[in-house]
Every structure is written in C-alpha cells, then in structure tokens.
C-alpha cells in the first residue's frame, strides 16, 4: 500500500519540485538534470508506457468480447487488426525486399534492380553503384565509399556477397537480398508490414478523414441557422472562410460582397424596423447605392481589399480568430499552472487512479 500510494506521491512531488527548481535555480548539476537527464528518463518511461498501452488495449477488448458487452463485435476487428500487424511486424516478413540485387548477366557483378551498365561502368539506379577504382568491385552509395572505403559487393565463393554478411542469396536463385532484421522489415518496401500499411491502413485512414466532408456538409445544412446574432456572426464568418480559402473565393465579384455587407447590416437592424415595406425597400436601395458607389470609384476595375473574399478571410484569421485563440491559450495555460500546482503539492491524486 505504501509503495502504491505514499511512495508514488513522494516520487511525484520530488520530481515536480526538481523539474521546477531547474528553471529558477542557477545550479549547473540541477540544470543538467532538468535539461538532459529528466527528458531522457521521460522518453524511456514513455516507451514503456506505449507498451503498457498496447497491453491495456488488448485486455480491454478481450474482456469486452468475452463478456459480450455492448458493440463487442467491433472489438473483434480491433483485436484482429492488432494481431495481424503484430504478425507482419515481428514474425512474418513477407516478400524479401524486392530481390533488388541481381547478377543479371552472370558476370559476378551485381546490379541494382535490373538496371544494366549503360556503358559508363556504373551499375545502378541513380548512379549509386560505382566501380571507383576499376577493380571490378561495385560500391554502394558514393558517400559510403568516402567513409568506409567499402568494398561492398564482393562475390565470395560462399554466395554471401557483402561486407557484414548483409546480402545473402536466401533461396539460391542468384538474387541477393539484404538480410532482414526486425527493424528493417518495417522499412522495406517489399515487406508484408509495409504492404499492409500502404495498401490497407493508408487508404482506410484517408477514407475516415474524408468522411468528415460528408458529415460537415450535412451538419452545416441542419445546424448553421440564423437563430440569433451570435449564430449569424458564426455563419457569416464560416461562409467567408469557406469561400476565402479556395480558388473560387477570388473570382467572387465585389458587388456580391457589397450585397453580403448590406445583408449583414440589415440582419442586425431587422428587429428595429417593424414595417416590412420600409425594411425591404431600404434594403434594396442600400444595395443599389452600394453598387453605384462601386462603379463611381471604379471598383469594377480594381476592387479594394475589404471587398475581396480572400482578403476578408485573411483578416478574420489574423484579427478575430487570433484574439479568440490567444484568449483560449491563456486560459489553458492558467489551467495547466493550477493543475500542475495541485500535482506537485500532492493534492491531485486522480493520476494514481483515485
């Protein structure tokens, strides 16, 4: 019990005070700890936390399936995806990366992916494999030779071709592929994991994100209504942003923007004018006057910035949106300070599972 509660709180408080003190005390050892050691500790702990997260996910969904909780069928797919990717990541390597190194003409010179010597004594794609010193040995990547003077592609009698035994003829077909390691399998284009990511996960992820467009369209149709002043403001700025961020915004003529301004003004004062005839006639008249002023000032040739939708959009982002975001950021920062204080002083115990 002591280890689970009091000790955890003591560690939490001690680390909190230490980390905080590093910013206020000019003590080199402490600075070294907060700047270098503590962040590295954090990264190690975060690595383990990721592993624990996987275990937790597994436990949660297995429990859900076993006890057949609500929507337990979806958990089967989660578990299936989890295990399939584990198998492809750790166990089944799939196709070796592309049979890249082929001795195409049995001359004991190993070419990269069917690319033949076009007469310049350079044997690979992008001129990477070069016989630097004319000894019939083809080095990998120019920089590699600079650093390692690597006689990389050496045809040794045992069928193992490269320094470090990396490239081996795994199945005796004369095609030499890099030895697969755990980390390599995730990075190799021909591997099963890479295939699953590229052709299953990637399209699924993009599809999920793209579905947002449909829901936003449907939601905006139903929810973006002129109910009150605030809703009207939100609607107009939303529409201006939507149009201003796409090419079509720049071809919307200035007189439509005047029409939007006039409509906005009359939407605000609508409740003040009771007589509908006066309201609509003054609304129409204002539009006509606005357009006449536009022609008088030759806005049809060069429209001022306040009549360009992309410029209005830029202004909305730069002024009201920035002001709102800053207010939220300051609020969040104050909240973090308060929460951190509670954690450091041991008052906040929800992180211990309370």
């Amino acid at each position, binding site marked *: 019990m002591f280890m689970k509660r009091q000790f955890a709180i003591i560690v939490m408080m001690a680390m909190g005070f230490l980390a905080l003190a590093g910013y206020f005390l000019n003590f080199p050892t402490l600075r070294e700890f907060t700047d270098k050691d503590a962040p590295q500790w954090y990264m190690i702990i975060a690595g383990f936390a990721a592993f624990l997260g996987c275990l937790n996910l597994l436990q949660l969904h297995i429990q859900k399936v076993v006890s057949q909780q609500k929507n337990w069928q979806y958990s089967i797919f989660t578990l299936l995806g989890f295990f399939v990717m584990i198998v492809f990541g750790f166990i089944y390597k799939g196709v070796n990366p592309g049979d890249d190194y082929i001795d195409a003409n049995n001359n004991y010179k190993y070419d990269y992916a069917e690319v033949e010597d076009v007469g310049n004594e350079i044997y690979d794609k992008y001129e990477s494999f070069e016989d630097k010193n004319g000894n019939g040995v083809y080095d990998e990547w120019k920089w590699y030779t600079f650093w390692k003077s690597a006689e990389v592609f050496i045809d040794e009698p045992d069928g193992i071709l490269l320094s470090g035994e990396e490239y081996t003829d795994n199945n005796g077909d004369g095609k030499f592929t890099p030895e697969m390691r755990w980390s390599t399998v995730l990075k190799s284009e021909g591997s099963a994991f890479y295939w699953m990511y590229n052709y299953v996960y990637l399209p699924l992820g993009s599809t999920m994100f793209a579905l947002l467009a449909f829901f936003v369209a449907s939601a905006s149709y139903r929810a973006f209504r002129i109910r009150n002043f605030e809703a009207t403001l939100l609607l107009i700025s939303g529409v201006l942003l*939507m149009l201003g961020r796409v090419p079509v915004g*720049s071809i919307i003529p200035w007189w439509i923007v005047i029409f939007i301004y006039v409509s906005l003004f009359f939407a605000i004062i609508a409740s003040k004018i009771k007589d509908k005839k006066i309201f609509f006639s003054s609304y129409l008249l204002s539009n006509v006057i606005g357009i006449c002023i536009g022609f008088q000032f030759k806005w049809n040739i060069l429209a001022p910035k306040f009549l360009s939708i992309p410029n209005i959009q830029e202004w909305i982002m*730069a002024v009201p949106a920035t002001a709102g975001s800053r207010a939220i950021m300051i609020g969040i920062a104050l909240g973090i300070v308060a929460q951190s204080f509670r954690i450091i002083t041991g008052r906040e115990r929800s992180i211990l599972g309370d």
Partner: protein
Amino acid sequence: MKELLVKLGSIDRRIIFLLIGLSVLIPLIKPNWVQLPLKIDNNTKVVFDSISSLKDGDKVLLSFEYGASTKPEVHPMAVALLKHLFSKGVKVYIVSLWPEGPIMATLAMEEIIDSNLFSIIEGKDYVMFDYKVGGSIVIKNIADDFRGIYKQDYNGISIDELDIMKGVYSVEDFDFVFDFSAGVPGNAEWVQYACDPKNVSLSSGCTSIMVTDAIPYVESGQLKGILAGMPGAAEYEKMVYDFLNEEVENQNKFINKNEVISKGKAFARMSAQSVAHLLMVFFIILGNLSYYFERKKG
C-alpha cells in the same frame, strides 16, 4: 415554392452525401472542367520567401508529424518543400515525432528520388532519423542535445560516420526548422520548447483544422508563415513549380534540366475543394431559407 423550401429543410441526408460525393469526384476525374485561378495567401508567401532566403549548404530540420489520415492534406506540402530545399542545395535533416512519420518521410523522399530532378545522396545531402517516443520532450532534447537522442540514422549508421552530421549538436546548429503538423506534438510544441527559446527560425505546414490554433504564433512572428491545409499546399506547390522552372532557365546546378517538373497533387485537388465548399454554402443558404419559412409558417 414556400412549401418546397420548407420540405427541403428536412431533405434526406443521403441526397446531401451523394451531391457532395459528386462535387468532389467530378472535378477530380475531369480536372479540365473546373479550372480556377489560385490566389496566393500572404502566409504562404512568407513561407516561400523564408525558404528562398536559405543558401547552398544551409541546414534545415524537417519534422514529420502526420499520418495516414492527414496524408492527402499535408503530404503534398512536404514533397513541394523538399523540392524547394534541394533546388537550393540545402542539407535536409528529417526527424519524426509520430510513429507514422518515418513512413511518410520515406514516401516523400521516394517521390523526390523518383522524380530524378536532383542528384541527392542519403547521408550527404539528406539524412533521416527514426521515430522517437516522447513527443514534446523529444523536441526539448533536440533543442539541447541532438546527439543525446539520435545516435544513428534511419539505416542504422552511426551519426559519427555521416558527413552531413558534422557540426550538428543542437537545434541552434540548424538554419531553419520546418514542421509538418497534424496534431500534438506539432508546431506549438516546436515554438514552445525549441525554436523560440533558442531563437531559430521556424515555419509549419499543417491541416486546415489546426490553423486557428497556430495563427497566434504566426501573428507574433514565432512562426514564419504557415502552409494552411490543402489550399496552403496547393499555393506552395504552384510557387515552387514556377520557381523550379525559372531556376532551370537560370541554369541552377542542383536541378536536372532533362527531367520534367510536375505540378503536384494538392493543386489538382483544389478544384474539387472549391466545388464542395460552394455546394456547402448553397446548402447553408437553402437550409436558412427553409428555416425562415418554417418559422413563419409555425
């Protein structure tokens, strides 16, 4: 007419889905049907000018923080930025703070290598590092002690053996940092933990939804411009495309003149986004007319 408008207020959502689907699909399949001029946003110009001011041999740190779901939006700007950097002979260092980051970076680099536009060599002109867990703490470590966390590159080669790593010890050794961001950690963390305290220029490309959070940093100058979502990517692609063509004519030694310069993917997708946005505005107007008559009736 009024009755019809009121009825439209309760239109089946599947019809809306169908129309939105068509509005996206048709411009993607037939891009020539909808061709619209692209206006360059001021923030995109700032990013372009900042990158353009870099010189041959300058060091730029790129951070990949996006994944499969946000790839269509962020990936085109990554490819365009890499083209821009390599055309200037800039050394590129790639780190990833999201698990999917290295795959995204690999895909972007493959696109660059396959284009054959630049004669670049891994380890000399660019270097990639693997994913590191820890989020903002990794950024803090990069700021103080790069070599403390990255001992080897993506291919497992010790950084001491890499020519490109000479003189790189912390974020201060980079001339510019660029962050491709789709969440947390993202550009805000780069501002707070690395670039602002160490006074290193930083810029970012992010999803549209993140722009509102990032814009205070742009306005304060802590971010040198921003590439905002797909429109930002399209604008930047266009600027880089024009720049590369200009540089080919100016005999730029870093660009292979014999290869074709492509425009990029985001540019082609903008027409689809334009039509979809127009349709949404139309729906909003329709919805409000319906709401007005419904209230009047009620």
